[in-house]
């Protein structure tokens, strides 16, 4: 028998109150766990997205696309001239390869998705190529070939050799043969498909227009130089290096992290008032008990420990339950969001939360810390009580 036993029994005796108090902290801990898992998921996804644009050191696109999310290819860019690709290739000797691409909103078998037109040879040279799971990449000369992302092909139920209808609207489509299926592990790309650039241009009547130029330099040290040169060489384009992209991504996730942390902390602070209230009630109700314990020789520090143990138990219980609920919620999240976004393939915001031991550790520690901090003042008051006065308490 120890402070823990006494605390545990006291909590057990007031089950409803304990339950409600614990719930307050559970909400905070679970929220924290889910939000951190989402953030982690976002990090993983962004990292994969960067890998998705592969070895491209520099991306060039129309400068009139101002919003940040377009930098992450969430929506097809405004178009610019395909001839710029040649200008870059021919005028800068440090450029190893250049690949123009055209991304448009389209429809495949009635399902909306992004259709990207690429030149297979230059695309491979710049990015290292699509990660083909089965079949092949786009074969030269086969005009109506399409490579589907894994998620898209699954949702269409299409496999290699099947004919699918591809178009910019549901009414104007052409028949394409599925030649390959790729997977990047990143939902946005895996819900899209790739066709030949010229075919895409014909399909959309955007002759000679592209949305992005991917550039690979001869060596990493010249990337900034090449980017600057492109900027000077061509007017009206935005030039983004992968380095900047990485910086922007980490900036975004950092900002999100602060935001998420703030939400979680606010929830935990709200819960902490519950703990403080419960502990204050517990101290008040047990005033006489405190008097008795002190009379029979308990030091102030013993009383303090006893009530801190009680607060810690609330914290541990809340932390564990909160983490369990958080993990369940994190796993349920993609299912819900998938249901919510079904059929609108243009929305790629399917972040899959990633739960790591660190996240659970942080959530658990926060729950415990908040509970102990909230219990500190009531416990201190209990410890400081005058024995005689406490004994006189009705």
């Amino acid at each position, binding site marked *: 028998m120890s402070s823990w*036993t*006494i605390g545990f*029994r006291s909590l057990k005796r007031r089950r409803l109150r304990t339950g409600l108090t614990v719930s307050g902290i559970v909400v905070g801990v679970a929220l924290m766990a889910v939000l951190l898992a989402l953030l982690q998921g976002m990090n993983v996804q962004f990292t994969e997205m960067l890998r998705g644009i592969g070895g491209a050191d520099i991306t060039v696109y129309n400068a009139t696309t101002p919003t940040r999310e377009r930098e992450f290819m969430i929506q097809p860019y405004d178009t610019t001239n395909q001839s710029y690709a040649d200008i870059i290739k021919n005028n800068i000797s440090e450029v190893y390869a250049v690949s123009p691409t055209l991304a448009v909103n389209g429809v495949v078998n009635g399902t909306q998705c992004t259709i990207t037109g690429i030149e297979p040879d230059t695309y491979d040279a710049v990015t290292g190529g699509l990660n083909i799971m089965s079949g092949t990449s786009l074969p030269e000369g086969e005009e109506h070939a399409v490579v589907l992302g894994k998620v898209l092909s699954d949702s269409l139920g299409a496999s290699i050799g099947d004919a699918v209808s591809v178009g910019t609207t549901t009414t104007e489509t052409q028949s394409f043969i599925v030649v390959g299926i790729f997977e990047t592990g990143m939902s946005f790309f895996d819900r899209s498909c790739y066709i030949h650039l010229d075919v895409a241009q014909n399909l959309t009547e955007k002759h000679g227009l592209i949305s992005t130029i991917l550039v690979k330099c001869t060596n990493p040290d010249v990337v900034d130089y090449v980017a600057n040169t492109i900027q000077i060489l061509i007017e009206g384009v935005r030039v983004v290096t992968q380095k900047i992209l990485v910086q922007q991504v980490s900036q975004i996730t950092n900002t999100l992290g602060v935001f998420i942390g703030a939400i979680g902390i606010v929830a935990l602070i709200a819960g902490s008032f519950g703990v403080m209230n419960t502990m204050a009630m517990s101290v008040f109700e047990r005033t006489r*008990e405190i008097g008795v314990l*002190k009379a*029979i*020789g308990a*030091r102030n520090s*013993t009383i303090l420990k006893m009530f801190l143990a009680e607060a810690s138990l609330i914290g541990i219980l809340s932390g564990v339950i909160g983490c369990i609920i958080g993990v369940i919620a994190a796993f349920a999240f993609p299912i819900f969001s998938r249901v919510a976004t079904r059929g609108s393939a243009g929305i790629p915001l399917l972040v899959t939360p990633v739960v790591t031991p660190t996240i659970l550790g942080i959530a658990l520690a926060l729950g415990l810390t908040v509970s102990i901090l909230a219990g500190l003042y009531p416990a201190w008051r209990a410890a400081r009580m005058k024995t005689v006065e406490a*004994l006189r308490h009705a």
Partner: protein
Amino acid sequence: MPETIVETADLTKVYKRGKVDVPALRGVDIKIRKGEIICIAGPSGSGKTTLLNLIGGIDTPTTGKVFVNEVDLTTLGETELADFRLKNVGFVFQFYNLIPTLTALENVEIPLVLAKVPKKDRISRASELLELVGLKHRMLHKPDELSGGEQQRVAIARALANNPSLVLADEPTGDLDSETATALMDLVEDLNKVRNQNFIISTHDPLVMQRGTRVYTIKDGKIEK
């Protein structure tokens, strides 16, 4: 040779109620020898409890000295007093004051836990004491499953846990019927005879007073005889 276990010298205690000073004790000199059952009698508000609190070291006098086992309690700090109480004094209260969430056995264990007695010794000592007060069969019951008399016996067992030289009981029979009170006093007498256990009991119950080795009567904060 009877040696002195408690001695007070010109003990006074003044409580402050707002701006008014309320004197509870006005110069008390008592001397208690080893092996005595001392009753402190007097009407309520006379200062009985205050005197017990000062002897037990849970309150400090305004002026005067308290010696228990030749230690001057007025020289001890808060933590030293707590340690002193743990080893030297057992308390029994009118309303038993057992911890409601703990069993009889665990209640008796508390002083042993505080004294850092190892678990095994603790349990055997606590059950011995419960046997001594005739409650071995009720060991695992919680206070609300015990009668008043039984709870008070548990309280006595708890008070004896660390072999204190002194057990202070504040109106221990105040909440008991006369039959139960008689049985409780039988126990007190037994413990006094068999273990030479000192008791200081505040009471206004004649049934208790007749069992005392000596009776101090206190009125308006002063000893009358």
